């Protein structure tokens, strides 16, 4: 009996087993590679993925999870993990100076080589049939025949006679990559490597490793010690030797944010502007969308379908295109908006250099972008308001405005609320608008890190991390953590509002 139900529950066990086995093997192999690449954290995650996949798809007790596992794994890896990882980065010194892991930083230092200039030997490439030899005239040495296709890593040199056919320098250049991979052993056993377009030379490693945390610089015998609190090797004089590596630095980034006036002051102003921007955007688009929806619902209005299509056009056009179009139209010098304003009123507003005007411009563009969504939603909700309620109020002598504010609005506001909160959250992080329109500018004067008048929290973080000099990922992570606190609060409020809306619709 158990056998038959088992078979019924599993029409294509082969497909499941093959697919799952492939996934398990692939992630296990990735785990192996990641460990080998000195990325133990990702290695562990890949291993966990492999084990979990095996568990979910081969163990019958977990069969209920088979349907949700792929989606859940994706969310965990690329949504939840980045959130946690961002917070973690906030506690590190991760930046362009401290980019690598410790092992990788040591690897980079250990592969640094210096050329011994005194040992440089000029060479030419000589053709011999379909193979080549390197001819060192001054030393009278010639290499064994080579294909120079990049596959060779070593060759020997012997005393020999000058070759017959020597390639021109510009023809020899195409072998550059192949030459750089070569190690040539001279008859005395010493090794020379490619050191320039026309030279080979003795190349020595710059550092040798003494023990896990100390290196010796070969040229002057200086001993470098790894400082795991700053993420740099330091000389005895205290000089830091790049590249550095990532280390935990505790609350340093947060201390920096809160105690450096050049950071904390612009951040307060950015935070205030972010709230103002999000609030005004939601209220503005809601009011305008609702107004248009009410007009479009008016039974006596003709041509509704045409109006509707034209009115939602701003929503249908990809936003990155419309934002860039506005960027061009608002251009101070040759934008069409200033052109019209100048011919009509003699005005030439400085949309991109005046803080107040730049903020106004951002709000105008966001209103243009956002009202159709609100209008479409409002049209849907307005249909749900019973006509007889409005008629009854009108019979009692209420004017159209009074009817709207006492009957219609209170009925559509509760279901609208979660969407308004979601819209607030969206605009709170609407960095695409800011990045494409103004890149945060105009810059607030006198700040320690670039911060602009139209920057919102998200775009400010983006600039700290990716745009301005010294990609400061650690600092960006710390600021993002602060944003998370706000977003978390909004998310919770929205969650409660959605629950209420859901309960209400169930009770109905």
């Amino acid at each position, binding site marked *: 009996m158990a056998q038959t139900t088992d078979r019924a529950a599993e029409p294509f066990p082969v497909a499941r087993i093959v697919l799952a086995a492939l996934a398990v093997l692939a992630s296990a192999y990735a785990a192996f590679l990641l460990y080998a690449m000195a990325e133990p954290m990702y290695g562990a995650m890949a291993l966990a993925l492999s084990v979990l996949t095996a568990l979910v798809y081969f163990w019958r007790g977990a069969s209920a999870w088979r349907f949700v596992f792929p989606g859940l794994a994706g969310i965990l890896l690329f949504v939840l993990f980045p959130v946690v990882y961002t917070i973690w980065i906030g506690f590190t010194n991760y930046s362009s100076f401290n980019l690598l892991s410790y092992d990788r930083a040591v690897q980079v230092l250990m592969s640094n080589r210096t050329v011994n200039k005194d040992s440089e030997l000029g060479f030419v490439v000589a053709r011999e049939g379909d193979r080549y030899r390197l001819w060192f005239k001054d030393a009278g040495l010639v290499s064994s025949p080579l294909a120079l296709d990049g596959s060779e890593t070593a060759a020997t040199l012997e005393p020999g006679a000058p070759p017959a056919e020597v390639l021109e320098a510009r023809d020899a250049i195409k072998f550059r990559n192949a030459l750089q991979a070569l190690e040539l052993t001279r008859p005395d056993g010493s090794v020379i490597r490619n050191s320039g377009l026309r030279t080979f030379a003795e190349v020595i490693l710059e550092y040798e490793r003494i023990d896990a945390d100390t290196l010796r610089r070969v040229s002057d015998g200086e001993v470098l010690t790894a400082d795991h609190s700053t993420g740099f090797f330091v000389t005895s004089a205290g000089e830091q030797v790049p590249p550095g590596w990532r280390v935990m630095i505790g609350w340093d980034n947060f201390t920096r944010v809160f105690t450096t006036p050049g950071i904390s002051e612009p951040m307060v102003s950015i935070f205030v502007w972010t709230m103002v921007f999000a609030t005004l955007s939601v209220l503005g688009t809601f009011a305008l969308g609702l107004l248009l929806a009410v007009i479009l619902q008016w039974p006596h209005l003709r041509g509704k379908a045409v109006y509707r299509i034209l009115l939602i056009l701003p929503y249908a056009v990809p936003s990155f295109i419309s934002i860039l179009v506005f960027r061009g139209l608002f251009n101070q010098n040759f934008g069409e908006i200033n052109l019209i304003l100048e011919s009509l009123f003699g005005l030439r507003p400085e949309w991109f250099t005046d803080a107040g005007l730049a903020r106004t411009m951002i709000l105008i563009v966001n209103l243009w972008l956002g009202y159709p969504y609100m209008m479409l939603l409002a049209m849907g909700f307005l249909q749900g308001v019973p006509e007889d309620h409005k008629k009854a109020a009108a019979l009692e002598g209420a004017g159209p405005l009074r009817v709207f504010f006492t009957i219609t609005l209170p009925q559509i506001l509760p279901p609208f609320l979660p969407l308004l909160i979601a819209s607030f959250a969206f605009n709170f992080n609407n960095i*695409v608008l800011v990045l494409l329109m103004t890149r945060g500018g105009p810059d607030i004067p006198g700040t320690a890190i670039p911060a602009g008048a139209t920057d919102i929290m998200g775009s400010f973080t983006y600039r700290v991390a990716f745009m301005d000099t010294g990609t400061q990922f650690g600092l960006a992570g710390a600021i993002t953590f602060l944003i998370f606190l706000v977003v978390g609060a909004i998310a919770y409020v929205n969650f409660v509002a959605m629950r209420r809306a859901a309960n209400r619709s169930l009770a109905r």
Partner: protein
Amino acid sequence: MIVESPRRLRLQKIAAHGFLIIFLALILFPFAMVLSISFREGNFTIGELIPSDPTLEHWYLAFGLDYTRADGTVVSPPYPVLLWMWNSVKIGLGAALGVLVLSTVSAYAFSRIRFRGKAPLLDSLLILQMFPTTLTLVALFAIFDSLGSVSPVIGIDSHMSLVLVYMSGIMLHIWTLKGYFDNVDSALDKAAAIDGASPWQTFRFIFLPLAVPMMAVIFVLVFIGAVNEYATASVLIRSESQMTLAVGSRLYLNEFKYLWGDFAAAAILSGLPITVVFLIAQKYLVSGLSDGAVKG
């Protein structure tokens, strides 16, 4: 409202149409300008709404063709717009397909399969959905920078990485589909179970066919969302040949190389298909948007 004088009604009608027409003139002004600019000569010149001396130069360049001006000089396209479009389409299709597969299967499980921790899991997903990817760009950059050392296919500058990120934004769609599946009469799957169907068969032969209209909505939404996405793509894609339209278009209006006319033609060319798709599908898209957010 109940009894209105015909004269007052006529005035109201004129007022309503007047307001809508003036409003539309303001709203549609940018579109008219862009269309006009795309046919104007040069990238700076200021001209009339209907160009007196229309030229197809910008359109030639947008389509990736060289343009020979009247004086014999040849202009080459500044950027590979069609390649960027193709990149965007590839990424959009990949993300949309991935989201469909993951969200239908997950939504079915959340709607019909009993397992422990389902309710708290759903609630957590709902809250997690509020944390946008744009806030975790630093981490995403670090992750793909490291993964790239295993294989460039999942590293920086790879379309696969972008698809993976976009594919993970499935919470809202799971929620929408779950609401849809919840409304399916449970007699249907009970009947299927009596006939000996497995959960997979019930999903494959009963729920999946029912969800096709909803899936179409989600497909279009995800596709448009992926094509329009700027922030993540701008961080993960670096080389010009790998760029999506959203990232590449920014290059046109650089402070040092301002190609207003070329941009206008490229913008219309690339924006038109998505706009048309959206307008055709808008009725369904909007209900998909609001249902997903409200249904509990």
